[in-house]
Protein backbone atom coordinates (compact mmCIF):
# COMPACT_ATOMS: atom_id res chain seq x y z
CA UNK A 1 0.00 0.00 0.00
CA UNK A 2 2.69 2.45 1.00
CA UNK A 3 6.09 2.63 -0.56
CA UNK A 4 8.57 1.73 2.08
CA UNK A 5 12.14 2.83 2.48
CA UNK A 6 14.30 -0.25 2.63
CA UNK A 7 17.46 1.74 3.36
CA UNK A 8 16.39 2.08 6.93
CA UNK A 9 16.66 -1.64 7.51
CA UNK A 10 20.35 -1.85 6.73
CA UNK A 11 21.32 -0.89 10.24
CA UNK A 12 20.05 -2.06 13.56
CA UNK A 13 18.47 0.58 15.75
CA UNK A 14 20.86 2.18 18.21
CA UNK A 15 21.51 0.21 21.36
CA UNK A 16 19.82 2.60 23.85
CA UNK A 17 16.46 1.75 22.31
CA UNK A 18 16.66 -1.70 23.78
CA UNK A 19 18.76 -1.06 26.82
CA UNK A 20 15.84 -1.32 29.20
CA UNK A 21 12.90 -3.64 29.62
CA UNK A 22 10.23 -2.55 27.22
CA UNK A 23 7.04 -3.93 28.67
CA UNK A 24 6.51 -0.52 30.17
CA UNK A 25 8.04 2.55 28.62
CA UNK A 26 11.65 3.01 29.57
CA UNK A 27 10.94 6.13 31.53
CA UNK A 28 7.82 7.06 33.35
CA UNK A 29 7.02 10.73 33.55
CA UNK A 30 5.01 12.40 36.26
CA UNK A 31 3.25 15.73 36.17
CA UNK A 32 3.71 17.56 39.46
CA UNK A 33 3.19 20.94 41.09
CA UNK A 34 6.16 21.45 43.40
CA UNK A 35 4.81 24.71 44.83
CA UNK A 36 2.82 22.65 47.33
CA UNK A 37 5.59 20.16 48.07
CA UNK A 38 8.74 21.63 49.62
CA UNK A 39 10.67 18.34 49.55
CA UNK A 40 10.05 17.90 45.84
CA UNK A 41 10.88 21.54 45.25
CA UNK A 42 14.22 21.07 46.96
CA UNK A 43 14.96 18.06 44.78
CA UNK A 44 14.15 19.99 41.61
CA UNK A 45 16.18 22.95 42.85
CA UNK A 46 19.18 20.68 43.37
CA UNK A 47 18.91 19.17 39.90
CA UNK A 48 18.57 22.62 38.30
CA UNK A 49 21.57 23.88 40.26
CA UNK A 50 23.63 20.96 38.97
CA UNK A 51 22.76 22.11 35.47
CA UNK A 52 23.53 25.77 36.16
CA UNK A 53 19.89 26.83 36.28
CA UNK A 54 17.80 28.61 38.89
CA UNK A 55 14.48 27.42 40.21
CA UNK A 56 11.82 29.86 39.05
CA UNK A 57 8.73 30.63 41.02
CA UNK A 58 5.51 30.92 39.08
CA UNK A 59 5.92 27.72 37.08
CA UNK A 60 2.49 26.11 36.86
CA UNK A 61 3.58 22.54 36.49
CA UNK A 62 6.66 20.36 36.12
CA UNK A 63 7.17 17.13 34.23
CA UNK A 64 9.66 14.97 36.07
CA UNK A 65 11.27 11.59 35.60
CA UNK A 66 12.18 9.72 38.76
CA UNK A 67 13.05 6.08 38.16
CA UNK A 68 13.74 4.18 41.39
CA UNK A 69 13.05 7.30 43.38
CA UNK A 70 15.92 9.36 41.96
CA UNK A 71 15.04 12.58 40.15
CA UNK A 72 16.93 12.55 36.85
CA UNK A 73 15.04 14.99 34.67
CA UNK A 74 12.63 17.90 34.93
CA UNK A 75 11.04 20.55 32.77
CA UNK A 76 8.63 23.31 33.75
CA UNK A 77 5.75 24.98 32.05
CA UNK A 78 4.57 28.48 32.80
CA UNK A 79 1.59 29.21 30.60
CA UNK A 80 2.98 28.71 27.12
CA UNK A 81 6.64 29.06 28.08
CA UNK A 82 8.86 26.03 28.58
CA UNK A 83 11.35 26.63 31.39
CA UNK A 84 13.81 24.93 33.69
CA UNK A 85 14.62 21.94 31.48
CA UNK A 86 17.35 19.88 33.12
CA UNK A 87 18.70 16.35 32.96
CA UNK A 88 21.06 14.72 35.42
CA UNK A 89 24.46 14.90 33.66
CA UNK A 90 25.12 11.14 33.84
CA UNK A 91 21.69 10.32 32.37
CA UNK A 92 21.98 12.49 29.30
CA UNK A 93 21.28 10.94 25.96
CA UNK A 94 19.10 11.67 23.03
CA UNK A 95 16.36 9.37 24.13
CA UNK A 96 15.59 10.82 27.56
CA UNK A 97 15.80 14.46 26.51
CA UNK A 98 13.55 13.93 23.49
CA UNK A 99 11.03 12.04 25.60
CA UNK A 100 11.09 14.75 28.24
CA UNK A 101 10.46 17.50 25.70
CA UNK A 102 7.80 15.40 23.97
CA UNK A 103 6.03 14.94 27.31
CA UNK A 104 5.97 18.62 28.13
CA UNK A 105 4.68 19.50 24.66
CA UNK A 106 1.83 16.98 25.06
CA UNK A 107 1.10 18.29 28.53
CA UNK A 108 0.99 21.88 27.26
CA UNK A 109 -1.55 20.93 24.59
CA UNK A 110 -3.68 19.23 27.23
CA UNK A 111 -3.53 22.47 29.19
CA UNK A 112 -4.62 24.48 26.17
CA UNK A 113 -1.25 25.77 24.94
CA UNK A 114 -0.13 24.49 21.59
CA UNK A 115 2.01 27.49 20.69
CA UNK A 116 5.04 27.30 22.97
CA UNK A 117 8.07 29.47 23.56
CA UNK A 118 11.38 28.58 25.09
CA UNK A 119 14.40 30.52 26.27
CA UNK A 120 17.77 28.86 26.09
CA UNK A 121 21.46 29.61 25.78
CA UNK A 122 22.36 30.14 22.10
CA UNK A 123 24.60 27.05 22.13
CA UNK A 124 21.58 24.83 22.92
CA UNK A 125 19.62 25.96 19.89
CA UNK A 126 20.67 22.97 17.82
CA UNK A 127 19.41 20.55 20.43
CA UNK A 128 16.02 22.24 20.75
CA UNK A 129 15.82 22.52 16.97
CA UNK A 130 15.71 18.71 17.07
CA UNK A 131 12.77 18.92 19.45
CA UNK A 132 10.60 20.89 17.06
CA UNK A 133 11.52 24.36 18.32
CA UNK A 134 12.55 27.05 15.86
CA UNK A 135 14.81 30.02 16.61
CA UNK A 136 13.11 33.41 16.63
CA UNK A 137 15.83 35.75 17.85
CA UNK A 138 19.22 35.41 19.41
CA UNK A 139 20.91 37.88 21.72
CA UNK A 140 24.51 36.87 20.98
CA UNK A 141 26.29 35.15 23.89
CA UNK A 142 23.23 35.60 26.02
CA UNK A 143 19.95 33.99 25.13
CA UNK A 144 17.79 32.67 22.30
CA UNK A 145 14.03 32.67 22.07
CA UNK A 146 12.51 29.76 20.17
CA UNK A 147 8.94 28.78 19.30
CA UNK A 148 7.57 25.32 18.56
CA UNK A 149 6.25 26.02 15.10
CA UNK A 150 8.02 26.72 11.84
CA UNK A 151 5.19 28.93 10.64
CA UNK A 152 4.43 31.06 13.71
CA UNK A 153 6.26 34.30 13.11
CA UNK A 154 6.13 33.83 9.33
CA UNK A 155 2.37 33.59 9.12
CA UNK A 156 2.00 36.47 11.58
CA UNK A 157 4.21 38.64 9.38
CA UNK A 158 2.30 37.57 6.28
CA UNK A 159 -0.86 38.82 7.93
CA UNK A 160 0.82 42.08 8.85
CA UNK A 161 2.01 42.54 5.26
CA UNK A 162 -1.59 42.86 4.10
CA UNK A 163 -1.79 46.04 6.22
CA UNK A 164 1.36 47.52 4.74
CA UNK A 165 1.21 51.14 3.52
CA UNK A 166 3.74 52.78 1.25
CA UNK A 167 5.52 55.95 2.26
CA UNK A 168 8.89 57.40 3.21
CA UNK A 169 8.12 57.59 6.93
CA UNK A 170 6.14 54.72 8.39
CA UNK A 171 5.71 54.93 12.14
CA UNK A 172 4.80 52.45 14.84
CA UNK A 173 3.71 52.72 18.45
CA UNK A 174 3.29 49.80 20.85
CA UNK A 175 1.17 50.70 23.85
CA UNK A 176 -0.25 48.87 26.79
CA UNK A 177 -2.77 51.68 27.41
CA UNK A 178 -3.48 50.54 30.92
CA UNK A 179 -5.63 52.64 30.70
CA UNK A 180 -5.73 54.97 27.70
CA UNK A 181 -4.98 58.58 28.74
CA UNK A 182 -4.73 61.99 27.09
CA UNK A 183 -1.01 61.22 27.05
CA UNK A 184 -1.56 58.29 24.67
CA UNK A 185 -3.87 60.37 22.55
CA UNK A 186 -1.27 63.12 22.29
CA UNK A 187 1.48 60.64 21.41
CA UNK A 188 -0.57 59.10 18.58
CA UNK A 189 -1.62 62.48 17.23
CA UNK A 190 1.95 63.86 17.27
CA UNK A 191 3.39 60.71 15.66
CA UNK A 192 0.70 60.63 12.99
CA UNK A 193 1.54 64.21 12.04
CA UNK A 194 5.16 63.23 11.45
CA UNK A 195 4.46 60.10 9.37
CA UNK A 196 3.01 59.04 6.06
CA UNK A 197 1.28 56.28 7.97
CA UNK A 198 1.21 55.15 11.59
CA UNK A 199 0.66 51.63 12.96
CA UNK A 200 -0.54 51.42 16.56
CA UNK A 201 -0.38 48.14 18.46
CA UNK A 202 -2.11 47.40 21.75
CA UNK A 203 -0.29 44.93 24.00
CA UNK A 204 -2.54 41.86 23.99
CA UNK A 205 -1.31 40.07 27.10
CA UNK A 206 -4.12 39.94 29.62
CA UNK A 207 -1.90 40.53 32.62
CA UNK A 208 -2.92 44.09 33.32
CA UNK A 209 -5.54 45.37 35.70
CA UNK A 210 -7.74 46.46 32.82
CA UNK A 211 -8.65 43.71 30.40
CA UNK A 212 -7.26 43.61 26.89
CA UNK A 213 -10.72 43.96 25.41
CA UNK A 214 -11.34 47.14 27.36
CA UNK A 215 -7.89 48.56 26.68
CA UNK A 216 -8.23 47.93 22.94
CA UNK A 217 -11.71 49.44 22.83
CA UNK A 218 -10.54 52.59 24.64
CA UNK A 219 -7.62 53.05 22.26
CA UNK A 220 -9.99 52.59 19.35
CA UNK A 221 -12.31 55.30 20.69
CA UNK A 222 -9.47 57.52 21.83
CA UNK A 223 -7.66 57.80 18.49
CA UNK A 224 -10.81 58.21 16.42
CA UNK A 225 -10.44 61.19 14.13
CA UNK A 226 -6.67 60.94 13.76
CA UNK A 227 -5.94 60.27 10.09
CA UNK A 228 -3.57 57.78 8.49
CA UNK A 229 -3.49 55.39 11.44
CA UNK A 230 -4.06 51.63 11.54
CA UNK A 231 -4.89 50.09 14.91
CA UNK A 232 -3.57 46.52 15.33
CA UNK A 233 -4.23 43.83 17.88
CA UNK A 234 -1.11 42.89 19.77
CA UNK A 235 0.31 39.38 19.56
CA UNK A 236 2.53 36.85 21.25
CA UNK A 237 5.45 38.45 19.42
CA UNK A 238 5.16 41.84 21.02
CA UNK A 239 5.50 42.71 24.71
CA UNK A 240 3.93 39.41 25.72
CA UNK A 241 4.80 37.13 28.58
CA UNK A 242 6.75 35.11 26.04
CA UNK A 243 8.82 37.91 24.51
CA UNK A 244 9.18 40.06 27.56
CA UNK A 245 8.55 38.10 30.74
CA UNK A 246 10.00 40.68 33.11
CA UNK A 247 7.69 43.47 31.98
CA UNK A 248 4.80 41.77 33.68
CA UNK A 249 6.70 41.40 36.94
CA UNK A 250 7.97 44.89 37.20
CA UNK A 251 7.15 45.05 40.87
CA UNK A 252 10.40 43.17 41.21
CA UNK A 253 12.03 46.32 39.97
CA UNK A 254 14.25 44.44 37.62
CA UNK A 255 14.30 44.35 33.86
CA UNK A 256 16.94 42.10 32.47
CA UNK A 257 19.09 43.28 29.62
CA UNK A 258 18.20 40.23 27.59
CA UNK A 259 14.48 40.51 28.16
CA UNK A 260 14.07 43.83 26.41
CA UNK A 261 16.53 42.75 23.72
CA UNK A 262 14.44 39.74 22.73
CA UNK A 263 11.28 41.77 22.42
CA UNK A 264 12.96 44.59 20.53
CA UNK A 265 14.82 42.30 18.16
CA UNK A 266 11.55 40.58 17.27
CA UNK A 267 10.18 43.99 16.40
CA UNK A 268 13.20 45.01 14.40
CA UNK A 269 13.81 41.74 12.57
CA UNK A 270 10.25 40.67 11.78
CA UNK A 271 7.49 43.17 12.53
CA UNK A 272 9.13 46.34 11.24
CA UNK A 273 10.21 44.78 7.90
CA UNK A 274 6.75 43.26 7.39
CA UNK A 275 5.07 46.65 7.69
CA UNK A 276 7.97 48.70 6.34
CA UNK A 277 8.24 50.58 9.66
CA UNK A 278 10.98 53.23 9.64
CA UNK A 279 10.29 55.02 12.94
CA UNK A 280 9.13 53.92 16.35
CA UNK A 281 7.56 56.51 18.61
CA UNK A 282 7.49 56.48 22.40
CA UNK A 283 6.59 58.99 25.07
CA UNK A 284 9.32 60.15 27.44
CA UNK A 285 9.02 58.34 30.74
CA UNK A 286 9.20 60.41 33.89
CA UNK A 287 7.86 57.86 36.40
CA UNK A 288 8.26 54.18 35.66
CA UNK A 289 11.85 52.89 35.72
CA UNK A 290 10.90 49.76 33.76
CA UNK A 291 9.44 51.75 30.91
CA UNK A 292 12.33 54.22 31.02
CA UNK A 293 14.79 51.38 30.71
CA UNK A 294 12.75 49.93 27.85
CA UNK A 295 12.95 53.24 26.01
CA UNK A 296 16.72 53.37 26.45
CA UNK A 297 17.12 49.78 25.27
CA UNK A 298 14.91 50.59 22.32
CA UNK A 299 17.43 53.12 21.04
CA UNK A 300 20.13 50.52 21.19
CA UNK A 301 18.38 47.44 19.76
CA UNK A 302 16.22 49.15 17.13
CA UNK A 303 18.64 51.79 16.01
CA UNK A 304 22.24 51.25 17.04
CA UNK A 305 22.80 47.48 17.09
CA UNK A 306 24.07 45.66 13.99
CA UNK A 307 21.52 42.95 13.18
CA UNK A 308 21.49 42.72 9.43
CA UNK A 309 17.99 44.18 9.25
CA UNK A 310 17.12 47.83 8.51
CA UNK A 311 17.46 50.24 11.42
CA UNK A 312 14.35 51.73 12.97
CA UNK A 313 14.69 55.31 14.22
CA UNK A 314 13.41 55.83 17.75
CA UNK A 315 11.67 59.15 18.39
CA UNK A 316 10.83 60.13 21.96
CA UNK A 317 7.98 62.54 22.17
CA UNK A 318 7.84 64.59 25.38
CA UNK A 319 4.80 63.76 27.43
CA UNK A 320 1.91 66.05 27.43
CA UNK A 321 1.26 67.67 30.79
CA UNK A 322 -1.93 68.52 32.57
CA UNK A 323 -1.64 71.30 35.12
CA UNK A 324 2.12 71.09 35.03
CA UNK A 325 2.51 67.36 35.63
CA UNK A 326 3.05 64.76 32.90
CA UNK A 327 0.14 62.45 32.14
CA UNK A 328 0.87 58.80 32.76
CA UNK A 329 -1.17 55.63 32.98
CA UNK A 330 0.62 54.58 36.14
CA UNK A 331 -0.53 57.79 37.80
CA UNK A 332 -4.10 57.00 36.71
CA UNK A 333 -3.82 53.53 38.24
CA UNK A 334 -2.56 55.07 41.47
CA UNK A 335 -5.55 57.42 41.54
CA UNK A 336 -7.81 54.49 40.72
CA UNK A 337 -6.57 52.69 43.82
CA UNK A 338 -7.69 55.72 45.80
CA UNK A 339 -10.99 55.94 43.86
CA UNK A 340 -10.07 59.54 43.09
CA UNK A 341 -12.23 59.86 39.98
CA UNK A 342 -12.20 63.67 40.11
CA UNK A 343 -8.48 63.78 39.49
CA UNK A 344 -8.62 60.94 36.95
CA UNK A 345 -11.10 62.96 34.92
CA UNK A 346 -8.42 65.49 34.01
CA UNK A 347 -6.01 62.83 32.74
CA UNK A 348 -8.17 60.61 30.53
CA UNK A 349 -10.68 60.98 27.70
CA UNK A 350 -14.39 60.70 28.66
CA UNK A 351 -14.70 57.11 27.39
CA UNK A 352 -11.89 55.95 29.67
CA UNK A 353 -13.34 57.74 32.64
CA UNK A 354 -16.75 56.23 32.01
CA UNK A 355 -15.35 52.72 31.77
CA UNK A 356 -13.17 53.07 34.86
CA UNK A 357 -16.09 54.44 36.82
CA UNK A 358 -18.49 51.73 35.64
CA UNK A 359 -16.17 48.80 36.11
CA UNK A 360 -13.85 49.69 38.93
CA UNK A 361 -15.80 51.97 41.21
CA UNK A 362 -16.55 49.10 43.57
CA UNK A 363 -13.73 46.69 42.82
CA UNK A 364 -11.26 46.06 45.57
CA UNK A 365 -7.73 45.82 44.19
CA UNK A 366 -5.23 43.59 45.85
CA UNK A 367 -2.16 45.46 47.00
CA UNK A 368 0.39 45.62 44.18
Amino acid at each position, binding site marked *: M*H*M*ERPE*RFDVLPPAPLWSNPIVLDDFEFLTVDPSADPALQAEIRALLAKCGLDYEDGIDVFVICRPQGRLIACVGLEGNIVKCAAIEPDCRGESLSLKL*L*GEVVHLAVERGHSHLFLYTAPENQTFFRGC*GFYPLVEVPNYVSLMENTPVGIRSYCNKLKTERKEGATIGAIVMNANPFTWGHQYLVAEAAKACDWLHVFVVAEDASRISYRDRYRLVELGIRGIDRVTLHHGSQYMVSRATFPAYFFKEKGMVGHCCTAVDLLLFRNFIAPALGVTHRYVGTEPFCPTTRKYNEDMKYWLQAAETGTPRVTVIEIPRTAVMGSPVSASEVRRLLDARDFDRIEALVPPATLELLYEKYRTVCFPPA
Partner: protein
Amino acid sequence: MKIVKEALAGTLESSDLMVKVAPASDGTLDIVINSEVIRQFGAQIEKVVRDTLGKLDVTEGLVVIEDKGALDCAICARLQTAVLRGAECQDLDWSVLS
Protein backbone atom coordinates in the same frame (compact mmCIF):
# COMPACT_ATOMS: atom_id res chain seq x y z
CA MET B 1 -13.31 15.69 8.42
CA LYS B 2 -12.95 19.13 9.92
CA ILE B 3 -10.19 20.02 12.35
CA VAL B 4 -11.90 21.92 15.14
CA LYS B 5 -9.12 22.17 17.68
CA GLU B 6 -5.36 22.01 17.89
CA ALA B 7 -4.06 18.50 18.46
CA LEU B 8 -0.79 16.68 18.70
CA ALA B 9 0.34 13.11 18.04
CA GLY B 10 3.63 11.24 18.09
CA THR B 11 7.02 11.81 19.62
CA LEU B 12 10.31 13.44 18.71
CA GLU B 13 12.22 10.19 18.99
CA SER B 14 14.21 8.62 16.20
CA SER B 15 12.09 6.70 13.62
CA ASP B 16 8.99 8.54 14.81
CA LEU B 17 7.46 11.91 14.08
CA MET B 18 5.41 14.56 15.80
CA VAL B 19 2.34 15.86 14.03
CA LYS B 20 0.52 19.03 14.98
CA VAL B 21 -2.78 19.97 13.43
CA ALA B 22 -4.74 23.19 13.89
CA PRO B 23 -7.98 24.58 12.50
CA ALA B 24 -7.58 26.66 9.35
CA SER B 25 -7.34 30.39 9.86
CA ASP B 26 -8.28 31.24 6.29
CA GLY B 27 -9.91 28.16 4.78
CA THR B 28 -6.76 26.77 3.19
CA LEU B 29 -4.79 23.58 3.78
CA ASP B 30 -1.23 24.36 4.86
CA ILE B 31 1.25 21.53 5.21
CA VAL B 32 4.69 22.17 6.65
CA ILE B 33 7.12 19.27 6.72
CA ASN B 34 10.45 19.23 8.46
CA SER B 35 12.51 16.10 8.27
CA GLU B 36 16.01 14.90 8.92
CA VAL B 37 15.74 13.11 5.60
CA ILE B 38 13.95 15.86 3.68
CA ARG B 39 16.37 15.78 0.77
CA GLN B 40 15.99 12.08 0.00
CA PHE B 41 12.40 11.59 1.11
CA GLY B 42 10.72 15.01 1.27
CA ALA B 43 8.56 14.44 -1.79
CA GLN B 44 7.57 10.97 -0.66
CA ILE B 45 6.66 12.13 2.83
CA GLU B 46 4.52 14.86 1.36
CA LYS B 47 2.77 12.34 -0.86
CA VAL B 48 1.95 10.11 2.13
CA VAL B 49 0.69 13.16 4.03
CA ARG B 50 -1.49 14.39 1.18
CA ASP B 51 -2.88 10.92 0.46
CA THR B 52 -3.69 10.36 4.13
CA LEU B 53 -5.38 13.75 4.49
CA GLY B 54 -7.25 13.18 1.23
CA LYS B 55 -8.71 9.89 2.44
CA LEU B 56 -9.80 11.55 5.67
CA ASP B 57 -11.32 14.35 3.59
CA VAL B 58 -9.33 17.02 5.39
CA THR B 59 -9.41 20.01 3.06
CA GLU B 60 -8.42 22.81 5.38
CA GLY B 61 -6.20 23.36 8.38
CA LEU B 62 -2.59 23.68 9.35
CA VAL B 63 -0.53 20.48 9.51
CA VAL B 64 3.02 20.66 10.85
CA ILE B 65 5.19 17.55 10.67
CA GLU B 66 8.44 17.11 12.54
CA ASP B 67 9.82 13.90 11.07
CA LYS B 68 12.66 11.94 12.66
CA GLY B 69 13.05 9.44 9.87
CA ALA B 70 9.78 7.57 10.40
CA LEU B 71 8.51 4.88 8.05
CA ASP B 72 5.56 5.75 5.86
CA CYS B 73 3.27 3.62 7.99
CA ALA B 74 4.19 5.62 11.09
CA ILE B 75 3.65 8.91 9.26
CA CYS B 76 0.23 7.72 8.18
CA ALA B 77 -0.72 6.49 11.68
CA ARG B 78 0.51 9.59 13.52
CA LEU B 79 -1.21 11.90 11.08
CA GLN B 80 -4.49 10.00 11.36
CA THR B 81 -4.24 10.12 15.15
CA ALA B 82 -3.66 13.88 15.17
CA VAL B 83 -6.51 14.52 12.74
CA LEU B 84 -8.96 12.30 14.65
CA ARG B 85 -7.98 14.06 17.89
CA GLY B 86 -8.25 17.49 16.26
CA ALA B 87 -11.62 16.63 14.74
CA GLU B 88 -12.80 15.19 18.08
CA CYS B 89 -13.80 12.07 16.19
CA GLN B 90 -14.44 8.91 18.22
CA ASP B 91 -15.89 6.62 15.56
CA LEU B 92 -13.31 5.03 13.34
CA ASP B 93 -14.17 4.48 9.70
CA TRP B 94 -11.65 1.82 8.74
CA SER B 95 -12.19 2.27 5.02
CA VAL B 96 -10.60 5.73 5.18
CA LEU B 97 -7.86 4.70 7.59
CA SER B 98 -6.29 1.91 5.54
